[in-house]
């Protein structure tokens, strides 16, 4: 019975990925870019969900990790002419290092304290990007498209300005992240993370060093966020302080909550829904962040399990 469940899970996720692969050929260009952006940001949401949905730690500082990836990638391309692959690797590494450093310091706190501490560190990071604006260009930001070399594979060139390249790059990174999250939830480590979330002391007395597991979750989470920032830079060429702001830390929380924390497909769904909603709203009014606020309040009051969480509870119990 467990075997068939595993097969169903992998089949479902594979189907979703194939669907995404196929969509690029049928949707108009505007939606193609939207989907590409959604997939890139969904990686951020997946990373956030590893920490919140599985380890049970709510952070308000993830923009720090996203922006680390972004700046690592952007600056090395702009100033040192790094290739996309190396720059991406550095972006992921930057997220991981940042998460390790922050984790070692902040994981002694938990719950509300953890939340505030991560917010504070992230805010300090954001202010630092403004303060050191000879390097970071602060709020204005900088563009790397001039320096960004196309991908070369099989003798052909794939420039990043090509929408198909953007789409499939995002798809690949998203697919890897999604598979990682599915595997994680079904692995021994994932089981421990869930246990830590449910009852940390009990987990300790079952023989697990819970602090190490929380740190691991944070590092994975930060690496995914860094990857997201990195890929976003490669796709859209722009690096700026706004991606380190508190709002950008609130987005993954919003996406994860909307989609359903503790589910693997929730992050994609939440990111997709919210990105479209914000896009539509920003066309109607300059106060479009109102939908962000309203969604958060409505979710927390009436739908704390999010869309996927609700689906899982009511109909499809085997969803991871």
């Amino acid at each position, binding site marked *: 019975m467990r075997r068939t469940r595993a097969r169903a899970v992998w089949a479902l996720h594979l189907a979703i990925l194939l669907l995404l692969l196929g969509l690029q050929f049928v949707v108009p260009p505007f939606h193609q870019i939207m989907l590409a952006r959604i997939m890139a940001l969904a990686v951020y949401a997946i990373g956030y969900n590893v920490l919140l949905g599985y380890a049970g730690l709510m952070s308000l500082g993830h923009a720090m990790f996203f922006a680390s990836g972004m700046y690592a990638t952007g600056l090395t391309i702009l100033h040192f002419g790094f290739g996309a692959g190396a720059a991406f690797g550095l972006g992921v590494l930057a997220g991981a290092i940042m998460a390790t450093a922050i984790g070692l*310091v902040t994981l002694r706190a938990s719950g*509300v304290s953890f939340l505030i501490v991560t917010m504070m560190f992230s805010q300090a990071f954001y202010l630092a990007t403004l303060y050191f604006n000879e390097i970071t260009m602060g709020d204005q930001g900088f563009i790397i498209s001039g320096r960004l070399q196309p991908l070369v594979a099989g003798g052909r060139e794939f420039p990043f300005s090509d929408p198909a390249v953007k789409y499939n790059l995002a798809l690949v990174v998203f697919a890897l992240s999604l598979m990682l999250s599915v595997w994680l939830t079904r692995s021994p480590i994932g089981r421990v993370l869930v246990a830590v979330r449910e009852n940390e002391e009990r987990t300790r007395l079952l023989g697990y060093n819970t602090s190490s597991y929380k740190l691991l979750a944070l590092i994975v989470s930060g690496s995914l966020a860094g990857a997201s920032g990195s890929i976003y830079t490669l796709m859209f060429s722009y690096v700026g302080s706004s991606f380190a702001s508190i709002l950008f830390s609130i987005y993954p929380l919003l996406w994860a909550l909307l989609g359903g924390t503790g589910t693997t497909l929730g992050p994609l769904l939440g990111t997709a829904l919210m990105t479209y909603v914000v896009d539509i709203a920003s066309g109607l009014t300059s106060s479009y*962040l109102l939908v962000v606020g309203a969604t958060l309040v409505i979710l927390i009051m009436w739908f704390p399990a999010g869309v996927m969480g609700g689906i899982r509870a009511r109909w499809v119990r085997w969803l991871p």
Partner: protein
Amino acid sequence: MSFEGHLFLALLEGTVTGFVLALTALGLSLVFGVMRIVNVAHGEFFMLGAVIAWYFSTMPGGFLPALVAAPLLVGGVAFLADRLVLRRIEYKPESTIVATIGLLYIIQQLVLTVYGPYARPVAAPVYFRIDFPWFGYSGYKLVVAGVSAALLVATWLVLSRTTLGLYMRATQQDREMAQAFGVSVHRVYALVFSLGAALAAIAGALVVPVQQAHYLMGLDALLMSFIVVIIGGLGSLGGTLAAAFLIGMSDGLVSVFFSPTLAKIVATLLVALVLVLRTGGLFGEEGT
């Protein structure tokens, strides 16, 4: 200007900032202490006070009635938020944070819609200049400091001398015990939340002739309030005051001698470290 001049200016600015910061942060501290929740929308109440003050300044009555109207109106908004939202989610810590983040954006964006994205100045109700050997200083700022101080004293009196204050302190110390003694915890919560918002609103209104009213000004007020409350301790009036002065002074000094952004970075990192190193976390209850 000479070094002593800069120093004196820094200290003077620091004092004014300290008083205003104490008033702004006090509401957050009380809410933290009594209700054990984090109100991320606190800065927006401050901003609302400033914006309401601007509206009053454009009306025949002028700026001064705003000092009464703003706290009342904003307190009302807070009361509604508590009743409609916070009570529903039973004041659970992480849910409250998400809810108040939502409130932050709702309030902020509604103000953006109605008031617009521009920063608008308000003329000070009293204008006089105090001349020091090195510079002229706005008398209004000193008035603000004085009024803030008076309000702080008034709050202290309410806390220590009135029944409401007694209920608040009892609920803060031991919620179950207070309930057993017949204190309606929900009513205390509603009042504390409204009071916290009202205090922030008055602070915002007082400050607007100095700062200008802008729909984003709440974020800064929020962060500074957080810093003060975390360093000064929850629900402690004395602690809030002491921390506000510490922060105000160092902010004044670093801003005058270095840069405001750097001052903020230092303050933010400092409070993060304090929170991490303080055993027992924010509420003194968290585990090993």
